[in-house]
């Protein structure tokens, strides 16, 4: 990290992030965000989730566009396979959160990234969700993430990037720690 002359660019505006951090330290109320999604059943196990606005910085925030995600189950579950399974969305969320973190931390540490590829695998014993064995949990019995990173850095610097990104990751926290979930019928 002795780079001064070479311009490091991972496409992350670190100054803006550090500025936001400083601003939110002074105004903690603005740091309270609410992320939202709506989901409509389509048919069978097929559903469509829409993500649009969110709340943050003390106000409703509109993106001016929406994102849609189809979820379904594969044909081996006698479904029509119209989209990734919900648990694969969890892998996608974890991978993209850690990857974004790696880019931001690398930028902050003056490390130029050339490529980052994450490969994820979540193990699951279906005896849980099928109610065959009550000692088996429904969710993953473990998740394995392998990062392949090409960057101007030593192997230990890259490992430190990956470690720091886990430390600051929302999805890593959501997956590794319990969360209260309130499900109601409106």
């Amino acid at each position, binding site marked *: 990290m002795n780079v001064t002359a070479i311009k490091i660019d991972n496409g992350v505006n670190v100054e803006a992030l550090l500025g936001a951090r400083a601003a939110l330290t002074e105004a903690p109320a603005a740091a309270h965000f609410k992320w939202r999604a709506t989901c409509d059943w389509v048919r069978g196990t097929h559903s469509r989730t829409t993500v649009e606005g969110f709340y943050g910085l003390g106000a409703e925030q509109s993106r001016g566009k929406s994102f849609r995600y189809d979820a379904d189950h594969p044909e081996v579950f006698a479904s029509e396979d119209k989209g990734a399974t919900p648990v694969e969305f969890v892998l996608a969320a974890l991978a993209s959160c850690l990857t974004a973190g790696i880019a931001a931390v690398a930028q902050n540490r003056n490390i130029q990234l050339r490529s980052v590829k994450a490969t994820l695998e979540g193990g699951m014993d279906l005896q849980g969700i099928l109610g065959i064995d009550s000692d088996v949990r429904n969710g993953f019995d473990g998740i394995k993430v392998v990062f392949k990173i090409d960057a101007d850095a030593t192997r230990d610097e890259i*490992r*430190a990037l990956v*470690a720091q990104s886990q*430390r600051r990751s929302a999805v890593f926290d959501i*997956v*590794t720690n*319990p969360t209260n979930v309130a499900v109601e019928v409106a």
Partner: protein
Amino acid sequence: MAGARRIGRVTGTVDAVVVGAGHSGLAMSRALAAHGVEHVVLERGEIANAWRHERWDSLRLLTPNWQSRLPGYRYSGADPDGYMTAAEVVDFIDGYARFVGAPVRTGTTVTKLRAVDSGYVVETDRGAWRCRAAVLASGAHGVPVVPDAAARLPASVRTLRYNEYRNPSELDWGRVLVVGSSASGLQLADEIRRSGRKVTIAVGEHIRMPRLYRGRDIQWWLDAVGILDERYDEVDDIVRARRVPSPQLVGSPERRTLDLNALTEKGVNIVGRLVGVDGNRLQFSGSLANHCAMADLKLNRMLERIDRWVDEHRVGDLVSAPERLAPTRVEAAPRLVHDVAKEPIATVIFATGLRPDYSWLELPAVDAKGRLRHDGGVVEPGLYALGLNFMRRRKSSYMHGAEDDVHDLCEHLVHHLHATKSSTTTADGSRARVGR
């Protein structure tokens, strides 16, 4: 402790009041006396009170005896490489108090500190003191910090704060969960495991260190390389640096290294942070592997820095060869849930740190999280802190860290007194009755 006396009775007026007669309060007293600043040192209990009453039996300092030094005073015993027991620390600080001749008022609990026009009023259970400057030297370790989950533990489990723990024989015979992975957490897990009890330790962020490196105490290296002297205004993120837990060290006669691998070898069960309690189920974080990986990486960066220093100073011949510790062993699938209905836990000990207690400060000097706002120990001109984590330097919370901080802050304090000279005190400090 609260006396029935009415507050507001002014016991005395001095230039400065020092709150706390531990090593840093006494060191400040010596410096103030040298500058002719009239002062008192108010102590809720006895000199070195926390070391007398709030430490477990086997505790020794994490720093070697040769490093036990205070301004004008140092260890002169026969075992410079050893580590003081708590009783020896009490003797050492008592000796320092006699050496300094500090004007200590023991058994005097400060109940309030508030600003008045000409400085401060320090109210105690034995009357109030007026002063123009005050020094908060009541220690970084006032009240235990305990995770939220503590309140939801099943009633069958006995809970202990680690300042309440004394030795394993006071514990029920049954599994003990130690929460916390700094020096204290590891030491308690190790000692309780040696007593034959089953032990689980919940591990979060931690600092791993070998006791000896290249044949010398790790504290010698931290000192020599300059790590301990790094200043608060030089590091990237001081807020984060101040939160770093104490390194996993133990002061033992055999100078052994105490890390998670050592605990694993003794059969201690290692799990992630305690993050939740759901009825009888204690839930641990799945982040254990990352916390261990971070500590290993950080350790290796420190050892590399030491090795570079050895090379730059061409002293490789005087010390043994570089070495690296084996990576921390983490089970492939560490336990995430411990159901006490199926496998009882007799005692949970929270070794999750202590924080200073500022509930008696009637000043807007504490942030929303109860932390003192200060710039290198200067809360405001006239009000100073001592002994806090990384307060001015990385060594600020260590005994040997007091000297430089006291020097800097005493200078600031004296300058403040001169700048705000009042009629109650002569500039040459002729009313001072302390010092020798």
